[in-house]
């Protein structure tokens, strides 16, 4: 998809003015946060697991080449094929070629964020293959022709009424004319439509939550079982995954699973957790005949080698989004690309270029709630500060803000001058606003005063000036 992160500020204002979105965000926030808190509270060893997996993932990142090659060897031994894609284009070319080689007409797709990242659906359509999203949320936004607005709940911004409208419009072609308005009815109709798609799809494409180097398996976590049907029913199964998804063995995958669902939805475990080992073996009664894995780099090795390396521990649970007050105010689409919230503000500038998303790292109060809940202990505020440093050094921030900052820094590093300056400012401000106690409006302070009054300074002097007077009078 075309990135619209450059207009974050405009997107955010539109989002704040969208009552449907605001209602959906409020509903989602209340649910996710409470459920996660309860699930974590029930696991006394939470922090110790959290610490263990951080160490484990750091070890994997230190030895990423080793574990990826081990994973590849294991997949080959299981009868699968591994493809390496450095760029989104390489990834989509590989997948489109596999599909066209199979003369595939339709593809059943499980939900995959890396699939969104490389814009897989557009590439498949271009190759003449029809992709069908089978995760209910992804299916809804595919009908709406929109990107996901949340990692694990892609259609979180859609209200029930909007879904009714979309199904009514798109399901007519299957002879379904009734306008369904209740949740259960909507789910049943989607299931009816999608079931047929599963059965007729030529290729299944899914993501992977983890890749297990020791066994060549991948772990797939869903709540709808759609990933399993996409994996097992079609003759060809293609897995697309970022290279950071590899873990050494099944114990490591199990440790991550204990954190994943709890962090994401507050479930102890997702409804479906499958360990998938590749193509159908002799004697198996089902499973795909051909099995491919496409490992995607897309700037991940760049992050491996720079100060954003900690971000590669991310396993896309969405907890940082759910707990971010900025995400909670504007939702995912405002961020303008596939990823949103705190993790998106770190990852998107890497993948689409900081110059195309300069506001994202700044659209954060650095309140730290994201890293507090992050099961992988990623220091998100520090990583956002790294981006901010780059926006400053590459002059991607407005001139007004750069010059303002430079002027302020020049003062702040000269204490005597600083105190003369601040004392004059206070004299001025207190003359203007002291009687009232606050300002309704003030030049250069429009950002502040549009929605709140600016309290006037307490007196006619700074603390430092008063303190000096007091010392002299002693």
């Amino acid at each position, binding site marked *: 998809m075309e990135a619209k992160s450059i207009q974050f500020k405009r997107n955010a204002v539109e989002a704040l003015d969208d009552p449907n979105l605001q209602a959906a965000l409020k509903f989602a926030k209340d649910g996710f946060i409470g459920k996660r808190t309860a699930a974590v509270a029930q696991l006394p060893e939470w922090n110790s697991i959290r610490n263990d997996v951080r160490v484990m993932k750091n070890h994997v990142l230190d030895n990423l080449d080793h574990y990826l090659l081990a994973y590849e060897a294991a997949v080959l031994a299981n009868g699968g094929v591994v493809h390496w894609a450095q760029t989104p284009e390489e990834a989509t070319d590989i997948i489109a070629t596999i599909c066209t080689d199979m003369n595939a007409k339709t593809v059943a797709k499980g939900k995959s964020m890396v699939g969104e990242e490389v814009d897989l659906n557009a590439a498949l359509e271009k190759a003449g293959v029809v992709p069908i999203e089978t995760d209910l949320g992804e299916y809804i936004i595919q009908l709406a022709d929109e990107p996901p607005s949340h990692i694990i709940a892609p259609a979180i911004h859609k209200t029930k009424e909007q879904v009714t409208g979309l199904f009514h419009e798109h399901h007519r072609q299957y002879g379904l004319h009734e306008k369904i308005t209740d949740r259960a009815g909507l789910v049943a109709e989607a299931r009816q439509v999608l079931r047929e798609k599963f059965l007729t799809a030529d290729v299944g494409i899914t993501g992977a939550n983890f890749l297990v180097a020791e066994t060549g398996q991948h772990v797939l976590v869903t709540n709808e079982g759609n990933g399993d049907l996409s994996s097992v029913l079609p003759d060809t199964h293609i897995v697309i995954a970022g290279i950071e998804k590899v873990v050494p063995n099944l114990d490591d995958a199990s440790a991550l699973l204990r954190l994943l669902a709890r962090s994401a939805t507050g479930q102890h475990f997702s409804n479906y957790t499958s360990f998938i080992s590749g193509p159908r073996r002799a004697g198996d009664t089902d499973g795909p005949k051909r099995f491919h894995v496409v490992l995607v780099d897309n700037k991940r090795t760049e992050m491996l080698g720079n100060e954003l390396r900690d971000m590669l521990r991310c396993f896309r649970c969405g907890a940082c989004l759910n707990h971010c007050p900025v995400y909670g105010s504007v939702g995912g689409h405002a961020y303008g690309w596939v990823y949103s919230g705190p993790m998106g503000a770190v990852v998107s500038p890497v993948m689409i270029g900081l110059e195309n998303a300069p506001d994202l790292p700044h659209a954060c109060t650095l309140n730290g709630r994201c890293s507090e809940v992050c099961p992988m202990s990623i220091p998100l505020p520090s990583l956002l500060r790294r981006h901010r440093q780059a926006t400053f050094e590459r002059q991607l921030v407005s001139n007004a803000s750069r010059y303002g900052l430079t002027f302020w820094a020049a003062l702040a590093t000269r204490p005597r001058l600083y*105190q003369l300056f601040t004392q004059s400012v206070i004299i001025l401000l207190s003359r203007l606003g002291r009687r009232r106690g606050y300002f309704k409006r003030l030049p250069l302070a429009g950002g502040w005063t549009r929605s709140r009054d600016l309290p006037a300074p307490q007196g006619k002097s700074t603390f*430092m000036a008063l303190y000096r007077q007091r010392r002299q009078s002693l």
Partner: protein
Amino acid sequence: MNNKPKVGLFVTCLVDLYRPNVGFAAIALLEKSGCEVVVPETQTCCGQPAFNNGDRASTIKIAKQTIEAFSGFDYIVAPSGSCAGMLKHHYPELLMDQTQWSDRASEFATRVFELTCFLVDIMSIDLSQTRFDSSVTYHDSCSGLRELNIKAQPRQLLGNIDGVSLNEMEDTEVCCGFGGTFCVKFPEISERMVSDKVALVEQSGADVLTGGDLGCLLNISGRLNRMASPIRVYHVAEILAGMIDEPAIGEPTSTNTQP
């Protein structure tokens, strides 16, 4: 011989500019707890405006200047979790690679405390003679809460004061939308966040909002004022020191005398 711990007060730029009363309240509290307090005159700001906007070089200069200004004190105390967190955690990070500074910054960091933590954890202050008849709600500022684990200390101190009843608001750990320059760079988002916060402050039923960081308090007070709310806002140091004769934050001065 004077055995009192020698404390250097880091005033913070917002207290210096906006609310000198908080600085004097901090001095009063520190002295009451048994410290000797000095305010070094070569301090300015902790450097967060530069740090959080990506100007690392300026931040490092400010960090060094602050460390210099506070050499020779047993403790450095700030009436702000955000600034104390900057001094305690981010200075050592920033100076990690500079051989002649990294040890100095780490040693400096061990002496840095936020005011309420210092009064409780180090000095065990006695506030039993103080009185403040009000229902109070306490906003947990993000940096103090998450960088310094300030949560129990201010509540313990408020609990020691006669007449105070603490009405906790819902989501007291959620950001108020201040975020330093965030609130002017993204005013619409900040407005949403501070509006949510103000609604919860009002729901608490408290007469007074307090907290340990002036930035957040200016933000919330500004919104309360705009919404014509009668809730008054004081920095927690002012309440603890019993220095609440001054008009609350954002209230007009009743007299023309200086503090």
